[in-house]
């Protein structure tokens, strides 16, 4: 090692600059794509939200007229956005309720699945793979299977089952029922994303020191006590991380809700509203304003979460 470094030393300075130049060369294509197609658009979207951008001036978008907060005011006044009582929550409240409840449900189911798979049994490897199916399968196919299961016709599985059990007389349109539709979308989210929580929790569970449980058993602790006093404290940090990630992603989620209900019947979340403003009404300014509100809610929550909850976890 010593001889080799002394052999390199005379050229060290040039090698170092050559390395740096090579590094920039290697990373430039990625950086250009990411900056050009993510960082710049993100900044540009702030700009769009303060300008009147529609189909009429899309070809000359950089000269769109500045209109201040008008887009934001339009969004806040929109009946699809604002809270108008328990019958009609509006997109902002719906989004928050949807994101929190599906994240929590995802984590509960993921924790159950992880505990289940933490026990050794025959066929565990395959079971674990099967448990990941909902997460890896294409969202379009999955969403349409669920719609077909919940189909309003008597040939839909849920209608068929409930009618056979004499629980309902006539077929119902579950996804077209206000309230129920949101509940079903939340259950769908949990069904689809619990494997993510499961994988992360499982990895952590398998890293817990066995002797902790053995010591607890010697002290006479039962299963429930072991769960609350050993398992939960050991996985607390990973639970916090999953909560943050899933909440963020669920809050930003467009396709699942859009494909399940099209955003109707009390399931209009902010991403769907953004899509509708932009690509149904072609009012890009208003769409961008909605997206900015979405981002703002997210950032405020994240700052709050990292400042309070994560700090407590670390202590």
């Amino acid at each position: 090692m010593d001889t080799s470094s002394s052999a390199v030393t005379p050229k060290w300075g040039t090698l170092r600059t050559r390395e740096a130049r090579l590094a920039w060369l290697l990373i430039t294509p990625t950086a250009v794509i990411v900056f050009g197609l993510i960082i710049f658009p993100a900044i540009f979207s702030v700009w769009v939200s303060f300008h009147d951008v529609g189909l009429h001036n899309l070809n000359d978008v950089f000269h769109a007229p500045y209109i201040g907060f008008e887009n934001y005011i339009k969004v806040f006044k929109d009946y699809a956005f604002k809270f108008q009582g328990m019958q009609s929550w509006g997109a902002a409240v719906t989004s928050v309720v949807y994101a929190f409840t599906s994240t929590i449900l995802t984590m509960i189911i993921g924790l159950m699945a992880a505990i289940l798979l933490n026990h050794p049994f025959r066929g565990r490897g395959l079971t674990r793979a099967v448990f990941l199916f909902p997460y890896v399968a294409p969202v379009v196919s999955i969403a349409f299977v669920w719609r077909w299961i919940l189909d309003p016709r008597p040939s839909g599985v849920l209608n068929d089952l409930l009618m056979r059990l004499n629980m309902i007389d006539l077929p119902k349109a579950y996804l077209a029922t206000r309230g129920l539709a949101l509940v079903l979308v939340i259950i769908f989210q949990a069904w689809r994303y619990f494997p993510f929580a499961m994988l992360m929790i499982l990895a952590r569970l398998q890293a817990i020191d066995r002797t902790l449980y053995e010591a607890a058993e010697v002290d006479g602790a039962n299963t429930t006590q072991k769960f609350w006093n050993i398992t939960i404290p050991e996985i607390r940090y990973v639970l916090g991380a999953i909560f943050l990630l899933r909440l963020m992603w669920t809050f930003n989620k467009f396709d699942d809700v859009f494909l399940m209900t099209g955003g109707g019947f009390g399931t209009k979340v902010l991403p769907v509203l953004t899509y509708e403003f932009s690509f149904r009404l072609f009012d890009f300014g208003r769409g961008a304003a909605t997206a900015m509100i979405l981002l703002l809610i997210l950032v405020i929550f994240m700052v709050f979460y990292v400042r309070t909850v994560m700090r407590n976890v670390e202590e």
Partner: protein
Amino acid sequence: MSDSKKSFIGHLADWLTWRRFIFSATLIFFLSSILFPFYWMVSSSFKSKAEIGGRTAVYVPSTLRLDAYKELFDPNNPSYQDFGRNIINTIKVSVPTAVIAVFLSVLGAYAIARLNFRGKEALLNSILLVYLFPGVLLIIPLFAMLARIGDAIGFNVQDNLGVLILTYLAQTLPVALYMLTNYFRTIPDEIEQAGLIDGCTRLEVIWRITLPLAIPALVSVSIYTFMIAWNEFLYALVFLNDHNMFTMPIKINTIFNDPSPRPNVVMAASTIMTIPIIALFLAMERFLEEGLTAGGVKG
């Protein structure tokens, strides 16, 4: 006969404690609620029109009817969907996305993991910021921006699979970069130093030493990006208008929203779209799990 049956039940009774009962019941509940939708998808794709729209649900199709598949692939069918073209479009988007993403992220991740340059941490952090931006937030400026650039340079934003590849790259590169950087950092630096001392150039070292060692990570990144591009819905929905350019997800959405509902056709198309993904996942599972937790499918 009866003796062996009795002993089986006796055996079962011995084995079945309360704990085991709860464990097995939960496991069966999980497995059936995960697998039933997949069964329902595949079985529905083989049903006839009468079985799809009857007064009760048909759980097992009477025969394996190919009506739905004929509608997708048979040009002589009255409502021929030309789904083959959609499959090709999807492949045309997802394969290049995976290949380019792996190529670019290998270069970038190597630079971050091994070489020292100023602004490295800032670059990495700002690339990871992408986690925060919702797809719907980016699509508006992207659409406006690319429409303007396309106008100036002379390409069409709409119905351009190249534009779609570019946007998928932007979405997947950060995670790919992150996954590969972490992997490269686990490869001992001494091996590369030895190569450098032997007179290889940096690029030769990457090609001859680092990449062969990083094959698991490369497989995992390529499958991850392939899956994202294969499944992606929102960007394809916005950027594609022409039926001939539709990728599978958009085509399935179109068939679903057809005024005359044909769930068997939707399920047949969904089956075709899902099987390669599930097969790929099962074949490559051991490479994938790390990627699934490290980057998530971002969604």
